[in-house]
């Protein structure tokens, strides 16, 4: 079978219409592929992503395995030739995987909610119809798990936010938010690791160095680690 035929199979495989969270494998140029897991975006599924990330580091030619939110990107040193085999191996590994139970480290992160460091708290109030105290309580209650790193150096995608405080991303992104911005974007929350643009709603500020390129590893947190936001202060 020639390479082009194999490829067509990969590109055609998913049936995206009407099945937004079906399993899907697609190309990102010649040297990267994206595996999207079926089902919910929750911790049991994410643990299976971590297991696949660990397993496929040893697939021939793999440069890096990069977990996302219930998905996994594989990058390659040179374009992989046997795409149908890779695809089959990913499917099989997903089906077999029981999940990698990472016992990570835990950090408590004090947050000053509202005020200058939380300019969009009012927008979350008006979107959810909840009061400031209620929002802060709901945000600080869960034990959040780091699902993946991405966006910018040291930034953590967290799982576990209470959907009651979900707030859509802003229509116009903020050009420059400081590092340490605690924010909500859709059903996700996170803390920015450095200053930069953001489309999320910033509700508070935390002081923490999430990334230091001289450290080994450079990122403070890794998938499987946990964070709890502690209420240092609420400014109304």
């Amino acid at each position, binding site marked *: 079978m020639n390479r*082009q035929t194999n490829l067509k199979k990969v590109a055609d495989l998913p049936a995206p219409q009407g099945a937004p969270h079906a399993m899907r494998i697609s190309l*990102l140029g*010649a040297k990267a592929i994206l595996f999207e897991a079926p089902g919910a975006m929750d911790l049991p599924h994410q643990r299976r992503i971590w297991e696949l990330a660990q397993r496929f580091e040893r697939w021939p030619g793999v440069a890096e395995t990069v977990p996302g939110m219930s998905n996994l990107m594989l990058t390659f040193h040179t374009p992989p030739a046997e795409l149908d085999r890779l695809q089959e191996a990913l499917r099989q590994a997903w089906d077999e995987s029981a999940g990698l139970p990472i016992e990570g480290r835990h950090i408590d992160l004090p947050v000053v909610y509202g005020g200058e460091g939380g300019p969009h708290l009012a927008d979350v109030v008006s979107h959810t119809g909840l009061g400031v105290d209620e929002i802060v309580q709901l945000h600080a209650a869960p034990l959040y798990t780091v699902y993946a790193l991405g966006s910018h150096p040291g930034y953590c995608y967290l799982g576990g936010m209470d959907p009651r405080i979900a707030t859509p991303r802003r229509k116009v992104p903020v050009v420059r938010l400081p590092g340490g911005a605690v924010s909500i974007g859709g059903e996700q929350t996170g803390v920015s690791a450095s200053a930069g643009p953001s489309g999320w709603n910033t509700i508070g500020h935390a002081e923490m160095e999430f990334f230091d390129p001289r450290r080994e590893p450079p990122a403070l947190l890794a998938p499987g680690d946990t964070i709890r936001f502690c209420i240092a202060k609420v400014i109304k």
Partner: protein
Amino acid sequence: MIEILATGALSTVQDLGRFGVLRFGVGTSGAMDDIALAVGNILLGNDGNAAGIEVPILPFRLRFDADTDFALTGADCAATLDGQAVPPWWCLHARRGQVLALGVPRSGARAYLTVGGGLDVPAVLGSRSTQLRGSFGGFEGRPLKKGDALAIVARAEGATPVSAISASGFGVRPPELGLPLPSGQDDVIAVRVLPAAEYDSYTAESLAQFWRQPWLVTPQSDRYGYRLEGPGLQATRSMELRSHGIVPGVIQVPHSGQPIIQLRDAQPSGGYPKVGTVIEADLWRLGQARIGQSLRFVQVDHGQATAALEEKERYLFQLQQAVQLQRKIWNN
């Protein structure tokens, strides 16, 4: 040392990029026109991944504080060394105190200055490229500014300096000639695109236009990404994606339907639908696309994208062989 006498806002130190740290949220950075950087290093007999300066906005002037071999590749920018014209895609020997000035580019968008031995900035997480968001790598983790003094790596043992070969320097033909990709229209740059995950989620008419119509590179275009303007892409369904890894070249389509090509300084993850990816072999063509120019997308499959990458690497290999052979002949 070289001292920066004048620069625009976004001149940065770059090598071929930082790889293997996506899992920490660190994107690749690296030269927007990787071929231009590679050719500069080939001309000078440098390590293939030696760091140079990417100069996107002019004016740019620097002074050599010691005798230095240098190469200028990428955009043809009417450069002069102490007032004497320096051809594009050329390497030359500068004497201590001489001033190199880059003018307004006649074609292309970014010029690359490489020096014999490469720029001596520390490798951070395996690369000398500037990581702007993380404020590390390159020169102090930031764009260059007037007054900066950059050190140069001592040349490898046995490396032949340009001055020993030719007083007037030497050069090569630009890669547009060796790696042609006709767009069928003057001033339109063709780049090859491999369809991505959400390709099938756009209307047939949108996709037909995607391949047929030119896409304008708008002023909101830089190392992070190019925002394009054109007929627009209409999705057949609403898409809410989970955050996932992306690579430079990915063409995302926000709700407006006007695509954004994510580039070297882009976030390494994203959530917008992806219609395709500009193939790795053509990222250098994007690096030389100017604001106001148009792009045309040419559809390829994985086999063709792979072949294009091999063709590019073969081109650089053959160029290196030719330059080495020429050096030998001159030396004898």
